[in-house]
């Protein structure tokens, strides 16, 4: 049980990271790869947040004066993740617009067939 308590979040986030990377490395479909990127992003964000957690912590908001600041979770990773989520969305939107253009030019989303340029 303590193992589960200590590692369950790490298992979850690195599971997402590895599944995301696996999708990106193995699949050829462009939309599938972008889905992989999304999952990878989510995993990294979850990892950052779980770094800042404290046992039986409270959210870092002084909603009533009696809250003990000693018990608050670390606010910095939360700020970082807010930034990271927005950046992830920006990359994703751009990637999908490029995917639409690729489909228009090549008639396929399979990256193996999109090969006009080579070394």
């Amino acid at each position, binding site marked *: 049980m303590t193992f589960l308590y200590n590692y369950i979040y790490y298992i979850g986030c690195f599971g997402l*990271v590895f599944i995301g*990377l696996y999708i*990106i490395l193995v699949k050829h479909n*462009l939309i599938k*790869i972008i889905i992989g*990127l999304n999952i*990878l*992003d989510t995993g*990294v964000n979850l*990892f*950052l947040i779980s*770094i800042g957690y404290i046992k039986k912590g409270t959210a870092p908001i002084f909603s009533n004066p009696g809250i003990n600041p000693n018990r608050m979770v670390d606010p*910095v*990773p939360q700020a*970082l993740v807010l*930034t*990271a989520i927005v*950046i992830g969305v*920006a*990359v994703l939107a*751009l*990637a999908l617009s*490029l*995917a639409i*253009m*690729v489909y228009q*030019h*090549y008639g396929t989303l399979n990256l193996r067939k*999109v090969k*006009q*340029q080579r*070394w």
Partner: protein
Amino acid sequence: MVNPVLLIVVPLGLAFTVPLFGFISKKTVKYIPVVAMGFNLILSLLLIPRVLEHPLVLSIGGFPPPFCINLTVGPLGILLSAVIALIGFLVSIYAMDYIRKGSVEKYQMLYILLLVGATGAVLTGDIFNLFVFFEILCISSYALVAYFGDSLGVEAAIKYLIQGAIGSTFMLLGIGLLYGMFGTLNMADIAKNIKLQNSIPISLFVPLALFITGMGVEAAIFPLNSWLPDAHSSAPSSISAILSGIAIKIGVYGVVRVMFTLFGMPSIFHLLLFIGIITLLIGELAAFGQTNIKRMLAYSSIGQIGLIVFALGIATPYGISGGLFQILSHALSKALLFLAVGYMIYRTGSMDISTFQGIGRKMPLTSLAFTIGAFSLIGLPPFIGFPSKFLIVRAALAKKEGILFIVLIFLVLFATIIEGAYFFRVIQVLYFKENKENQDKKDAPFSALVPLIILTVFILFIGIYPKPVMKLLRLASWELLNKMDYIKWVLGAG
């Protein structure tokens, strides 16, 4: 009131006003990047003497350094930001006439923001802030590569985007691991906490490897450079100049900053030597076989990055000055080459080298600029490439570590010979071949010739009189080698 934060904020503010100017008059829009980059150029030149006296550390938001984001403007940062502003200024003059297709407004906004990202990345002293500015740089370059929306550009952009996105995620993972271990994001504070002697524990090696992979994608060091030739050859020529001249240098800066300032352990620098030499050889050999001129220049950029990384890996004051000098010289020469080639392609309508026969007589100034850029890149005196390559070879010779460095110097010279061979081939086609089809070609317009001439003057001037630059370079290399000084600037003596 000269404050380095204005280097980032004023162009950013101007980029936000572009749509508002667009409502008033579409024609004024193309002058905004010129104004923004001209401002940056003047400001960074004004700041250089102050920074040389004492490095500036500015906290943003008015809190003490480890608790807020701070800009650390040392000699290295101000040198790179001056180079960025110079190249950006000249290319923005060039682009006034060159970019006519598509929505010009959007091009100009993305262009300014790319340079804002580059400037921010070299000035910041906070690891997460570095990541954010890196993303600004990367995302705007993805969009600009696909700016024309043709099939080649879109294909290059999507490949670049996928690799870049994986790289930046790795970087974020590395930041997370470092934050978990040390509980701070300030680079000086992290550097203070990492005390390495001779070996590196795995728990620290993993974030280092993640950082090098993440930034190495942008820097195009060896196994991570498959995006570069596509992206640099399919982008508009003005953007190719910026990507080759500046964007990949920021990647190298990131790798170097993390390795030297954050981790700062001599035995890992040998890694850079080997990465550099492999990248150099692969780039130059691949460039030799190209018939497309922009691809040739792109591969040559890979080779030059290899040389820069090699020089920085020597890790002596001379070696690092040589590497930084090479950054400067490659930025000027490669920008000149891409800009000159841009109008040759525009006039002949093809990127194939064989179609440029006889262009040398019809477009004399452009061809002269190309020739000077090529000579400088090869390292012939009296151009800027000569002192920089000379410095690198001298630094490698001074490092008396037996046969290893002799072999490496031999490989560097070999790569230079290959470089010379393919550039002379192009120059021969330009001047010594005749073609009836190219009889009616005009030279480039005035707005394109001005940046070409200014770049040529800089290349010649620094090549003949490198002394003032050398002083700045020596201080910059000192900044990289002395991690303790950097920590002292930011966090004070305690």
